């Protein structure tokens, strides 16, 4: 069949056989290579985080995919089908114009109207110098308390929207915090400062996907309910009086923290 | 820089992928398969030039002509010698693997005393002591060899007895020897001139006599023809290979061959199918037929078939005189196509030595079949090349193996002419071994040396000026200028064939019909019965284990 075999000569059978299997093998290998190449490319073009996020979003249960407008009480029930990326949502304008009806009780979790909130429990603050400060929201702070270790990105490192902004370790649990926006890290803070990262985005960022105002109230209220559900699964109760206990992870070590952290930081 | 687990994983994956593009895995793949072609535990044949030598086979008395291919000093292949006057290029079945026998696992290479390892000096000392104390018996399985002279001389000198153990073919001729008064060793079958051969269980196509002689004859004159020139009638209880190929097969009841012979004799005489008038067996035809389990018509038919296509000769597998007498009746003794007398150029020493009743020790030569159970009394010194198992001897003494010993081959038992051949020691005799003759010469240095005896025999052939030497091409003895030249030819694998004796007559007369021998040895029935060594070459398993053409031998080591 091949020229290195004794007494070799070409026949039509050889040609048909070789071309058929050559084609099949080529198809298989090029598929594999194409897949790998695209994967590499996605990383190179900083599309990987978005892709991963979309993949993960697809796996979220319905309760965790509620539209911000539902949370804000603008519509009775609506599931997000744009991976929480309202920048590409065609219905955003129309829905955002509706009157909001946010719940009042937030179980002692405060939020600021000046900040923008990400579903991964980070806030974003627009600073005077064009940079954006990013920090952990009070809900997450209640949960984590003071982390055992924090690994922040290096200065000048690029973070991607929905990519990993920084990681924390608490009681052996590794927590990956999603970045609310893309850009270059120009300064790092930490649990002891009022921010974790300062990010300089490339150009004027569109931050429509971040929650604000009544949406945050609705969202946090839903999150508290979710947390309560998850904690009660583990036969623990939150502190009565409706206020979220601080340092929950330290105080309730028996809870299913894997599940809670996954839901909280949308990191499945 | 810190290495995380992730870096390690990526690195490993990268290296794995990278290795595929290096020659390493491919070279390894090739090397591994080349290794599978050269496994060190697979024996590799020696390399070297192959030389071809001629030699007679020494495994049994037939002395077939062998073409031995030697490489690196060892025999690597055996085939027949196409123009050999006796064997016509054929050997017995197992002879084609005879060159493997020297490495048979049962090969004896150590002196054993009562089952324990011993040494030659101890055996020597024990034997010397025995010689000093009493008479010695010496047993020889293949009398008439140069070595036999030494054995016989020793026995004579030491007030002992020289006993021979005849093979089945010699035994089958014993009745005629007894009736005619000539030694059985000088009798033979004139098969070439016979036209009907009635075999009473003799494995004629299965290694009987000198195998090639009869198989070639049968093949040329008898095979497959409905009315062959040579009619082979096989009388045997089972459908043996010979029976399967015979012109006719008569299934006689086991152990009633004598009765059938008696019935045949009655028909032959009563229906005047033969000239002879008697003697007649006591048994009537009816009685005999009932005993043999055959219809009378069939016996009568057989008797007619025996005589209608003469000359006819009856061959028995054992020396049952009741069957042998048929030949006398048929007039097949001393006539062409029957049992004839051979020349006697090489004289045999007188075998009759006075035998004392008791022996202090018995020496058994390696030529004695392993089946022979040594005498219970006295100390037994048994020489053997292979341990046939279940040894009854006190001393088991290793003998040289196949082609490791200088020996001569006197006339084969069934041969029609006197023959002589010399097998030289193509392989060096192992130091651990001694022949019986060598052993005895250490006690008595005056015993004749084998080498010298062979010289003497060649001289006798040269002096007789009879016959022809066949070695490549034939050359009458009369044309040799010296005995040394003649010996040289014989030592190169030639064979001497004598001429029929002039004016020799052989006459047998029976007064009464002989009774069946009471102690007639059981006829050999196994396909290995004509194979002399106590072991089979390992390749023999092809016949009975790896195929079904033969049954597993019952009594021998595989």
């Amino acid at each position: 069949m091949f020229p290195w075999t004794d007494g070799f000569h070409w026949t039509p059978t050889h040609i048909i056989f070789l071309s058929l299997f050559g084609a099949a093998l080529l198809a298989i290998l090029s598929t594999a290579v194409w897949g790998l190449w695209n994967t590499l490319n996605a990383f190179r073009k900083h599309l990987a985080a978005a892709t991963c996020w979309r993949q993960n979003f697809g796996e979220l249960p319905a309760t965790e995919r509620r539209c911000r407008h539902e949370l804000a009480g603008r519509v009775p029930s609506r599931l997000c089908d744009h991976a929480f990326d309202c920048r590409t949502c065609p219905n955003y304008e129309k829905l955002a114009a509706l009157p909001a009806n946010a719940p009042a009780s937030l179980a002692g979790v405060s939020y600021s109207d000046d900040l923008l909130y990400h579903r991964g429990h980070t806030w974003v603050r627009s600073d005077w110098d064009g940079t954006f400060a990013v920090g952990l929201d009070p809900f997450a702070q209640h949960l984590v308390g003071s982390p055992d270790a924090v690994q922040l990105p290096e200065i000048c490192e690029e973070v991607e929207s929905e990519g990993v902004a920084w990681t924390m370790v608490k009681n052996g649990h590794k927590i990956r915090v999603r970045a609310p926006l893309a850009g270059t890290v120009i300064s790092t803070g930490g649990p002891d400062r009022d921010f974790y990262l300062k990010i300089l985005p490339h150009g004027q960022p569109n931050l429509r996907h971040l929650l604000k105002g009544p949406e945050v109230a609705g969202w946090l209220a839903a999150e508290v309910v979710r947390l309560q559900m998850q904690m009660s699964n583990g036969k623990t109760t939150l502190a009565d009086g409706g206020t979220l206990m601080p340092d929950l992870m330290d105080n309730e070590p028996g809870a299913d923290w894997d599940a809670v952290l996954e839901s909280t930081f949308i990191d499945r | 820089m810190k290495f995380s687990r992730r870096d390690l994983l990526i690195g490993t994956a990268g290296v794995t992928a990278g290795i595929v593009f290096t020659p390493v895995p491919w070279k390894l793949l090739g090397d591994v398969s080349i290794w599978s072609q050269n496994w060190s535990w697979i024996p590799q044949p020696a390399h070297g030039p192959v030389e071809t030598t001629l030699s007679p086979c020494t495994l049994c008395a037939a002395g077939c002509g062998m073409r031995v291919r030697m490489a690196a000093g060892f025999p690597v292949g055996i085939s027949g010698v196409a123009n050999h006057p006796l064997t016509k290029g054929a050997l017995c079945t197992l002879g084609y693997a005879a060159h493997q026998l020297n490495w048979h696992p049962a090969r004896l290479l150590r002196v054993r005393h009562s089952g324990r390892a011993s040494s030659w000096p101890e055996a020597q000392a024990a034997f010397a002591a025995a010689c000093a104390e009493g008479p010695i018996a010496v047993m020889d399985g293949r009398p008439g060899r140069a070595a036999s002279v030494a054995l016989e001389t020793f026995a004579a000198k030491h007030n002992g007895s020289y006993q021979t153990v005849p093979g089945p073919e010699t035994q089958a001729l014993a009745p005629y020897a007894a009736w005619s008064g000539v030694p059985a060793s000088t009798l033979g079958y004139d098969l070439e001139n016979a036209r009907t051969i009635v075999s009473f269980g003799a494995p004629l196509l299965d290694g009987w006599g000198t195998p090639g002689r009869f198989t070639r004859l049968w093949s040329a004159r008898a095979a497959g023809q409905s009315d062959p020139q040579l009619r082979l009638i096989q009388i045997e209880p089972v459908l043996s290979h010979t029976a399967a190929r015979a012109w006719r097969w008569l299934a006689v009841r086991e152990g009633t061959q004598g009765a059938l012979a008696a019935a045949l004799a009655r028909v032959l005489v009563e229906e005047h199918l033969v000239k002879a008038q008697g003697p007649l067996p006591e048994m009537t035809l009816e009685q005999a037929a009932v005993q043999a389990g055959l219809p009378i018509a069939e016996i009568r038919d057989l008797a007619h078939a025996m005589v209608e296509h003469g000359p006819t000769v009856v061959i028995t597998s054992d020396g049952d005189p009741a069957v042998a007498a048929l030949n006398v009746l048929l007039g097949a003794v001393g006539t062409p196509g029957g049992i004839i007398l051979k020349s006697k150029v090489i004289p045999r020493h007188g075998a009759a030595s006075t035998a004392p009743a008791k022996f202090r020790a018995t020496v058994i030569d390696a030529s004695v079949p392993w089946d022979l159970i040594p005498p219970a009394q006295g100390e037994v010194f048994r020489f053997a090349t292979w341990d046939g198992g279940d040894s009854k001897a006190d001393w088991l003494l290793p003998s040289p193996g196949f082609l490791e010993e200088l020996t001569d081959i006197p006339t084969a038992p069934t041969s029609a002419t006197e023959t002589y051949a010399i097998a030289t020691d193509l392989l060096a005799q192992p130091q651990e071994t001694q022949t019986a003759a060598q052993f005895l010469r250490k006690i008595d240095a005056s015993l004749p040396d084998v080498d010298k005896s062979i010289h003497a025999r060649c001289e006798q052939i040269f002096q007789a000026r009879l016959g022809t030497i066949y070695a490549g091409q034939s050359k009458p003895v009369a044309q040799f200028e010296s005995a040394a030249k003649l010996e040289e030819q014989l030592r190169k694998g030639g064979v001497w064939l004598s001429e029929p004796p002039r004016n020799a007559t052989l006459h047998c007369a029976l007064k009464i019909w002989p009774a069946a021998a009471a102690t007639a040895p059981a006829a050999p029935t196994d396909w290995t019965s004509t194979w002399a060594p106590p072991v089979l070459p390992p390749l023999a398993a092809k016949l009975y284990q790896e195929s079904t053409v033969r049954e597993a031998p019952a009594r021998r080591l595989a």
Partner: protein
Amino acid sequence: MSETALIDRRWIARDAERASTARFLLWLFPWVCLLLLGIYAAGLCFYYGLNQTNMDNRFAFGMWIFLDLSIIAMGAGAFFTGFLVYILKQTDLKPVLNTAVVVGLTCYSGAVAVLMVDVGQPLRAWFTFWYPNTHSMLTEVTFCISCYLLVLILEYIPVLVQNRQLRRVPSFLVFEHQAHKLVPVLAGVGAFLSFFHQGSLGGLYGVLRGRPFAYRQGFAIWPSTFFLFILSAIAVGPSFLMLVVAAAEKITGQTLVDFRVYRKLGFISGVLLAIYVAAKAIDTYVWLNVTSPRLGFGPWDYYSYWPFSSTFLFAATVPLGLLPAILFIVPRTARHRGLLLLAAALTCCGVLLNRFVMTVQTLALPTLPFDPFLKYIPSWQEVATFGGVLAYGVIVYSLSYRYLPMFEATKGEAKNVSLD
């Protein structure tokens, strides 16, 4: 919960209901034992050689080849479901696609593993790629099986990286995303290879001129068995898939797929089976009356040896061929889950019987006029090696079921999200 159970839980999809770690380990234990026994038996065959088997010069192919042919036919569900979903757009079969991939992968890789034990010199197996003989059906089989195994691995990787922990590695997830786009291509190539492969397995015996019991005439270089094997494989593939899913449902006590999927699989099986039985009948008729007599063999003599009487022929055609086909197609019977599963089991038995007849009976029958009829009983090493493959299949499927999204139902309701 113990530490192990906690770690175990971390690898299971968050909202999936799975048996406790202890129960799962208890379930795995006998299979792991069987697998270890199989590995030991295979090791004996590698170390001492194939004398450990009861195969011989006359039964040169034994139980392994019979079961290889069988499990590869059963594994046909993989390529055929892929073909139906991606090429013929039968998207309602999607819920069983992952199961099909895992079943196919275990069947094919198991068959390759057994083949490696089955050959006398596995170290030289790659010679087939270096000195291939294009006229040999076995070359075709080797090329197809290795290429298709590649395809199955490529199809399995996207399923694998959907594991809860593995998907945390961004590159895996991105690769899965990319691979998903290519699955139709793979399904196409896989279908081509696998059609060819099933066919050449049929051709393996069909070309044996020296074995008139197996020899068939055919089209171009392919004997009729080439096409019959393809047909029977795609007929039995969905049936076997159905049985696997039903077994998974029974063992886990969960409803994993909608009954409509069963019916659809059954219907496909039934139609193909009906076509197969018809084709097989014609083929047998031609063989008995033309092919075999032309080779000098009186065809009915093949059936004169116990236990290979003509009831085998009948059994393969009617109770194990026509009957399940009817059960699958007639709506009244197809409504019953029990009857559907019975039909699937009968179909599998029918194909098993067919493969048995083609491999074992062919070799048992005499060819030379003085040949005896031969018997062969596999040695424990042969049985154990195969048992190992079976255990391997069960273990891989169990692990896949536990840690990977095998059925869309277990993924929660997140189904119709547009990802781009």
